[in-house]
């Protein structure tokens, strides 16, 4: 059976051009970039070139790019690093309720360290309101961290406006742009971004490598100590193959961004249009227009997400859901709940995230099999189309206590 990959927000395949340079820097150009001999020098040169390519993708300077092991480390370094370096100035941090756990759990950790965190709500489309950010700023605020685009519903946040506000108020602005970099145009200068997290594997680079952009002059304290790598910001022998791969992926993303966005957003618009027209009792999650080019997210009433994913998988289609059953916890997605969805509607969510390799034929096949799967699950559901109401015993009422 042909397999169809509609889960590009989880990860993407490595571009073969990337894989080639990664392999070359594993097998031939394998030197330690700290060594002074020719092997070391060629590794150092490769890292420098990769840094320039990543900087170019963001319209940053190359000395503003610090390589990390990926998105989670970038978020940790940005939040903890800014918090610790600026705690004499203030101890208040502003973020949103829909951030990735790499940000949310780091904020919870910082609360235990004596910092105060405001978690901003979002509107029904999953968007942070700039006026809420403005209202939350106090004379103790040192950092605002709002993601560029949400990983579940794809909503693109008003980054430039938040950045402008932060700059005016003298507060640092970090954005977790893991989903957006390489998939959507970003200009850190124009958008007033002080720190930005990115990860290679979301745009056809390798897993285990990413970068943190830190605008020149922003005070950040290192959280990992050792050698003087990455100008004392991130100790540890550089992951040269990963970094070179990240650089190559950034270069490709920059040159192919416009054509990729046009291709993917056309497929996405077809999916959203057809699903909303053909399947009743369906809600589109996320913003109708301000969303990532490849993201479509729906809630199908009366059914549960995991059983939907299993049925799609049996047809060869790989997607994801905000259902509790697919997250390993008993609560559905915190993002969907923050947007005001009820638990039962959040349980029935389906996320389809497209990539440059997807085709119209794949989309047509998905649209062909999806309605029958939904109908079959609905026919099996006691929430759908029955009038009988019985007394419900509820041994599950304490289920939140048992989470994880």
């Amino acid at each position, binding site marked *: 059976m042909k397999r169809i990959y509609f889960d590009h927000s989880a990860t993407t395949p490595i571009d073969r051009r990337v894989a080639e340079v990664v392999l070359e820097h594993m097998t031939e150009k394998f030197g330690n970039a700290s060594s002074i001999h020719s092997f070391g020098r060629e590794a150092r040169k490769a890292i420098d070139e990769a840094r320039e390519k990543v900087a170019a993708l963001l319209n940053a300077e190359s000395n503003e790019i610090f390589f990390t092991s990926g998105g989670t480390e970038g978020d940790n370094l940005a939040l903890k690093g800014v918090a610790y370096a600026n705690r004499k100035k203030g101890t208040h941090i502003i973020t949103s309720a829909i951030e990735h756990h790499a940000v949310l759990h780091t904020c919870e950790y910082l609360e235990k360290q004596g910092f105060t965190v405001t978690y901003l709500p979002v509107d029904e489309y999953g968007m942070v309101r700039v006026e809420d950010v403005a209202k939350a700023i106090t004379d103790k605020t040192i950092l605002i961290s709002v993601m560029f685009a949400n990983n579940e519903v794809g909503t693109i946040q008003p980054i430039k406006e938040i950045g402008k506000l932060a700059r005016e108020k003298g507060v640092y602005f970090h954005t977790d742009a893991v989903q957006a970099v390489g998939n959507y145009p970003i200009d850190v200068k124009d958008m007033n971004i002080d720190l930005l997290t990115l990860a290679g594997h979301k745009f056809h680079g390798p897993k285990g490598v990413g970068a943190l952009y830190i605008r020149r002059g922003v005070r950040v304290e290192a959280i990992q100590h050792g050698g003087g790598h990455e100008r004392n910001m991130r100790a540890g022998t550089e992951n040269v193959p990963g970094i070179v791969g990240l650089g190559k992926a950034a270069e490709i993303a920059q040159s192919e961004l416009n054509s990729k966005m046009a291709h993917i957003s056309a497929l996405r618009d077809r999916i959203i249009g057809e699903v909303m027209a053909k399947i009743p009792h369906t809600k589109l999650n996320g913003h109708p227009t301000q969303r990532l080019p490849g993201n479509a997210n729906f809630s199908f009433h009366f059914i549960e997400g995991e059983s939907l994913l*299993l049925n799609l998988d049996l047809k060869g289609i790989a997607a994801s859901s905000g259902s509790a059953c697919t997250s390993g916890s008993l609560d559905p997605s915190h993002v969907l709940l923050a947007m005001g969805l009820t638990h039962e509607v959040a349980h029935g969510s389906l996320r389809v995230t497209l990539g440059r390799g997807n085709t119209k034929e794949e989309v047509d096949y998905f649209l062909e099999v999806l309605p029958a799967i939904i109908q079959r699950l609905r026919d099996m559901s006691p929430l759908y189309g029955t009038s009988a109401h019985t007394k*419900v*015993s*509820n041994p599950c009422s304490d289920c939140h206590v048992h989470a994880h």
Partner: protein
Amino acid sequence: MYTDKVMDHFTNPRNVGEIADANGVGEVGNAKCGDIMRIYLQVENDIIKDVKFKTFGCGAAIATSSMVTEMVKGKTLDEALKISNQAVADALGGLPPAKMHCSNLAADALHEAIKDYISKKGK
């Protein structure tokens, strides 16, 4: 993550639907947790002549519902009351640990349906 037997009952669930003149109906779970199971019984002379289910939930919820209906069809009420959630999971070759709490309630739904039958009969 699921056994072949779970996937078999998930893809080809037995006894899906409703019984119009059911004389015992039981429902457990809640939509907040993501699992609701409803069992319909047709009982004659203390024997389960027919059983059907409707379930909102994950793969494990659907498979356990299907399995419990297969296990009790033709059984006496006493025999059916002895079937536990664990026995249903065992009959499916086991469930992932995370599924044992919220998604493994099919026997509870069955027992609720039997209680419903007994209370109606008593009136």
